[in-house]
């Protein structure tokens, strides 16, 4: 059976190296996390919404955002799911939670991980706080995870 299928398919790979320019907004965001353990958002001059992670344009108003706002390193869970299966690339050992977190001061949700795998201990509305990595590597996981407080 397998031989039969093998004849009918051509096995190939796509292996391409990429180098993405992150841009000034991402660079400042990641640097503040790594160097100062601070999380920043940006505020739209027109509608006043604060977005995190920060980006250049408010998509609702199509305005350039230049006002940086320091957010608290704590927030509230607005949604979550618990990962129990294992794949080769995992930020934490399962079980752990993916969550949408409304950081204090922000108007958009921030997606990250929580080091809690028991769904009974998690709920929408629960408070979490960022735990920063000892040696930052200029990645989003320089916030290693959020923990329940």
């Amino acid at each position: 059976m397998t031989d039969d299928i093998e004849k009918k398919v051509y096995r190939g790979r796509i292996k391409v190296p990429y180098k993405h320019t992150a841009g000034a907004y991402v660079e400042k965001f990641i640097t503040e996390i790594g160097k100062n353990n601070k999380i920043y958002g940006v505020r739209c001059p027109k509608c006043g919404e604060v977005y995190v992670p920060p980006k250049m344009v408010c998509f609702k108003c199509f305005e350039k955002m230049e006002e940086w706002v320091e957010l608290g390193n704590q927030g509230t869970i607005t949604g979550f799911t618990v990962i129990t299966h294992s794949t080769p690339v995992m930020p934490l050992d399962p079980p752990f939670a993916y969550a949408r977190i409304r950081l204090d001061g922000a108007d958009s949700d921030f997606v990250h991980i929580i080091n809690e795998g028991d769904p009974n201990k998690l709920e929408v509305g629960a408070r979490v706080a960022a735990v920063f990595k000892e040696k930052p590597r200029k990645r989003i996981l320089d916030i290693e995870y959020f923990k329940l407080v």
Partner: protein
Amino acid sequence: MSRKKKGDIFEIKWKTNLPYRWSIGKLAVKFFEELKENKKILGSKCPKCKKVHFPPRAVCAECLVKMTLDDMVELPPRGTLEGFTVVNYPFTDPSTGGIRPFPYGYAIFKLDGADTYTMHFVNETDASKMKIGQRVEAVFNDELVGDLVADIPYFRIVEDEKEGD
């Protein structure tokens, strides 16, 4: 916008490594079977316009008519050079993720009896030794596995023959 100094660049580097299993279709399955078992090269002939296609395929683009296994025809492993080049610059081969070895000879020719052209490797890296009109012949690997480049790694220029001989 001020130019960033080299040390300031924040680049995110990553490499894809995506596996695929492409279904190749009945005519291609037959092509590779014949290549592996009998060292034969097959094309497909449109039942309507009679155009002989190489590589073989299921649909004639001009007529939009289907070609089946019964429409496959044998082609000789020989052709005439229509164009040639020697690729002499480094680039990443997406199938391997590494740089494809260069320089390599690359040519376009029609297999005798085919109505479409073929592009494939040739074993000459000196452009001055190639000329449009030269005869080329497929060089088969000793062990055939049913893969185009593994089984026919390149075509060789047949030195003493010219088209019309």
